């Protein structure tokens, strides 16, 4: 197989350029998609207080329905606070993300300027 990178005429630089292009286009840290994560957080904060009551045990469904009714006022009270916490967290993260975006934009601009100034 003629794949010896050290061989005469082997276009190592052009192959390196292919590797670099792939890295540039695909190197994305997990979490880069902040908008998507925020939507996930907001969905998670939308607490569902109606639990599934299906059961494969005899009488299981009735027991689950009864427990859900008995504890509904308490679970609802907790859920409202968790929902508020989730929404407040999402707002805080959204504000931070906007600041990070602005900082990244400024860093890129500075890097471009610096590269342009170099001979």
């Amino acid at each position: 197989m003629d794949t010896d990178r050290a061989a005469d005429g082997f276009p190592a630089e052009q192959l390196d350029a292919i590797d670099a292009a792939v890295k540039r286009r695909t190197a994305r840290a997990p979490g880069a998609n902040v908008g998507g994560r925020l939507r996930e957080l907001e969905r998670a904060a939308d607490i569902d207080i109606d639990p599934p009551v299906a059961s494969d045990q005899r009488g299981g469904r009735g027991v689950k329905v009864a427990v859900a009714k008995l504890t509904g006022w308490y679970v609802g009270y907790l859920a409202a606070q968790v929902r508020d916490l989730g929404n407040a967290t999402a707002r805080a993260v959204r504000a931070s993300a906007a600041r990070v975006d602005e900082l990244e934009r400024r860093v890129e601009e500075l890097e471009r300027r610096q590269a342009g100034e170099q001979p």
Partner: protein
Amino acid sequence: MTTVHQVIPVLAPHDAVGNHTLMVRDALREAGFTSEVFSELRFGDRAGIGLALSDYDAHAGDADLILYQSSTGSTAVQWLLGRREPVAVNYHNITPASFFEPWDDEAAASMRRARSQLGALARRSRLALADSPFNAAELVELGFSPVQVSPLLLDLDARLTAPDAALAEQLARRRDGRSWIFVGRLAPNKCQHDVIAAFAAYRLLYDPGARLTLVGSEAAASYADALLGLVDDLGLAGAVSFTGPVTDAELAAYYDDADVLVCLSRHEGFCVPLLEAMRHDVPVVALAAGAVPDTVGAAGVLVEEATPHLVAATVRELLEDEAERTALVAAGREVVDAHSLESAKATFVQAIRDHLAARG
């Protein structure tokens, strides 16, 4: 009469798992079982096929077994957990969320949910069937028992439609070198970026007129955008085609035009396009990852890493060596024959029979 119903979250057109489900239903009926397919969502040319899951109790009667077709997340799992009937799972793989996390958080979250639901089914499942040893190993890890490898039902002959004549003519006119193809959704786990990089190296080193066709719809828009950007960066705009979704006739034309199928996917539960390529006598070069080595067998060239110039050299060696190419095509026909629909149906039905007999 023994009754085995199936539940599948979605019945969609051009979906291998949906096709498998309908063929399992037909095989069970041919074997004397009563069998229906219930799904939460049916659309396209599948809209009128099977029954709605919400109508299960009205139509199903007493089932001896409910077979759940698992390849995605679904609220049907909660429904299954509440049933009294014995449940079996037929697993076709759920892509690990880590592949999608950098690209599409919603898709990644959906995959995490799907895996968690699958884990919850482990304690309710009486039998787990996987369509590859790779998928079987995932089920064992999740706590399923017993786990059996059982074939995916595929009608590869039915996909041998006449190629789209206009497209075939257009492809022939454009031919100026070797033609690469890969078939699969544009998805991070399928690593089309590695195929593009290997193809760029192949053009650079051996064949400046070569072309690459990537057949398949988008699974993550940001990943598809990155692929388009990569093609531009590498100056391959006229050499790489993204087809989007295609008809069977168009797919046949693309396969007929191809000299080689290059698959550098890092996670596949089975990978039907490998068999489709073999059915069209297109030799395969593939990364030895996921279920790919099981599916390819000895009918393809497996590479251990996706380094562009090494993949390019492997493809070139295969295409220049007529004897090896012919041997691989012949081996591919044997693999396709081993996946014949009739034998797969018989094996699948026997697995269900054996399970029901053992249960008494």
